[in-house]
């Protein structure tokens, strides 16, 4: 899933890019209104994080032009002023959500996951992809959630991809490199520790007992496997 981040502050732009990449999104960056419109035309993103106060062309105008081309495009507005958000809501520009500065990582993640769910819901994914079982864990990719009994577990796009890959190749040992390529994308370069650490964090959420895992089992020297 590709996200266009349009923000004139470099640090915020790069920070958002990092958060989104960690979640498993492909990120395209733009620093002003003009380059945002160019990137939108060239990259065809799945949704856009759009700062309102941008040089050259304002976020409102960028939103209008993008919506003219793609009326269903999800847009998350970013702003430092509540008044601007009021305007976004008041003008009915069709903001799917908004984030007011100063924001934290978790807030951004929650908003982006919510929009991703809506993207999936409107994309009309096949029913088969709507859910699968990994033991007593039921995974719902379209919701970015898993359920074990009454417990609801919030998952990132990347978490879903890893679980889905393991489920699709259940019984097979998947190499770390394969998991990288499929779940991080070829452009994402990282140490093997990144994957292991991610799996460790994921286990804490999806395993009943992370010390003796049933969903993501370690295959020493190779990678990981779901036994099915």
């Amino acid at each position, binding site marked *: 899933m590709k996200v266009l981040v349009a923000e004139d*502050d470099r*640090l*915020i732009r790069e*920070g*958002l890019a*990092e*958060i989104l990449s*960690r979640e498993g999104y492909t990120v395209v960056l733009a620093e002003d209104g003009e380059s945002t419109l160019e990137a939108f035309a060239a990259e065809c993103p799945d949704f856009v994080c759009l700062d309102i106060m941008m040089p050259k062309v304002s976020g409102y105008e960028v939103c209008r032009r993008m919506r003219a081309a793609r009326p269903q495009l999800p847009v998350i507005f970013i702003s*430092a*002023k*509540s*008044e601007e*958000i*009021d305007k976004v*809501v008041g003008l009915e520009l069709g903001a799917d*959500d908004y984030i*007011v*500065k*100063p*924001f*934290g*990582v*978790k*807030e*951004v993640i*929650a908003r982006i996951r919510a929009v991703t769910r809506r993207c999936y819901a409107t994309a009309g994914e096949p029913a088969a992809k709507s859910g699968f079982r990994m033991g007593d864990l039921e995974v719902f990719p379209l919701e970015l959630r898993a359920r074990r009994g009454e417990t609801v577990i919030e998952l990132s796009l990347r978490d879903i991809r890893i679980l889905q890959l393991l489920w699709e190749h259940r019984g097979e040992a998947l190499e770390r490199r394969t998991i990288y390529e499929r779940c991080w994308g070829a452009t994402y370069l990282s140490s093997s*520790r*990144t994957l292991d*650490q*991610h799996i460790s*964090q994921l286990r804490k959420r999806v395993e009943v007992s992370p010390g003796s895992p049933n969903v993501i089992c370690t295959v020493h020297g190779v990678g990981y496997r779901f036994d099915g």
Partner: protein
Amino acid sequence: MALTRKHGILFWLIVCLPLAVIAALGWRLAREEQGLARQRLRALLGVRLQDAALVLENHFDELERGLDALTESVGHDAESIRRLVRSDPRIAQMFVLEADGTLVHPDPRGALNDAERRFLADAGDLFLHRDFIRTDGDASEGPAGRSGWVVRFWGPGLNLIYNRRLASGRVVGVLLQRARWIAEVIAVLPATAEPPGPDRERSLPSRIRLVDSHGQSIYEWGAFAPTEGSAALEELAPPFPLSSWRLQYFADDAALAVAGRGAYFNLLSLVAATGLALLMAGAWFFREYHRQVREAMERVSFANQVSHELKTPLTNIRMYAELLESDLEEAGVDPSGRPRGHLKVIVEESQRLSRLIGNVLTFAREQRGQLRLRVRPAVVDNVIAVVLERFGPALGRRQVEVAFGRGAGARVEVDVDVVEQILGNLLSNVEKYAASGKRVEVVSRQTKGHTEITVRDAGPGVPPRHRERVFRPFQRLSDDISESPGTGIGLSIARQLARLHGGDLRLAPSERGARFELRIATPRCESEAGA
């Protein structure tokens, strides 16, 4: 602007109300003053008329004395009486009655001249009563016997008859020559109405008129010329036998209006001076108030500006600190180690700063009347969980145990930012003031259309008398410098936001600690309500 209009009205009330009261009281006082002045003037006029009446009284007293002497000398035979009548120009006719009341002159049975016949025709009824002496006024009892006046109207008007019972029992009467006695009356009256002496210059132009019973002027004197048909300012009946006549006083109407005008002038001066003083004081207060409002607005605007400027760097500090925390977690750095501990402090403090800025901006928006709700579908319990998670490390470090009783799991229309800000302020208070209780309990509950969230701590609590005070802006319950720092607007904002969200925030009585009860309107989402 609403505040300014209210104070504008207040300003005019402060200026106009005392002015109106002073003017009303002054008007009443001036009216009374004018009434008194009129009364004094009327009394003065009365005195002037009484003076004239006294002149008439003296004149008639003198006349009576002359007539007494005349009647004493009246003979018995008709001829001597007729001679007397002819010789005295004052007398029109005389009559004599015996002690038994028999009219002996002019004798109706004897030979009468024309004048006597006319007299009997005009005044014959006088002699029908045997107990004559007759008087229409008070009969005077002198040493020479009883005497008195009889007034009769015939001919051109009033006729005066003086009669007297002599020591012998005879009654002698005199009909005065009308033209003569009127001329004498006129002669004794003054030629000018102005008082003599030093008051003459200051007195008003006036006229005194003596009118008969038909209202015809007999005589008038004084410099003032009243217009035709104008009413007299004062009126007095002259003494008997002229009591059917009137003495009337005329003067310029404006003269009375002038009386007491000084009081109105004084009142006007007082009202004008007070009004001017109040206006100046009001203008000064108004200007002072505006200056303070402008300064406050500038301060709020400055705080607003600064807060906005702080937002971007603060976003970066918070975001990168949280990313670094995530990096360290991924790198397997010991969560209880110093680097992770230090980083937690940065994250928490940046969150605290975010709350402070949020409160300042919300306060500024509330002051400008720009607070708006932005509701969207959400699960309130999830919002509470996010806030509790955010406060988890800070409360944990103070060994405050957090208990969350979930009861608001329905998807409702709610302003997530508002709920987060209210709860953030309540939990921030727990962190600052109630950490000693070592426990905070958050319980949510949903009823039809509303969500209630109770935040109860086990700290020192709030004395009952301060339960409302804590919600006022800039109120701190303790001035102790060792107290935790704060802006003093957190709870005020929390209540404002709760009310904006169709509910309220109150501090409920509690045996131990503080118990805040938040209630907000949260309509069910349409998709859920239908389910």
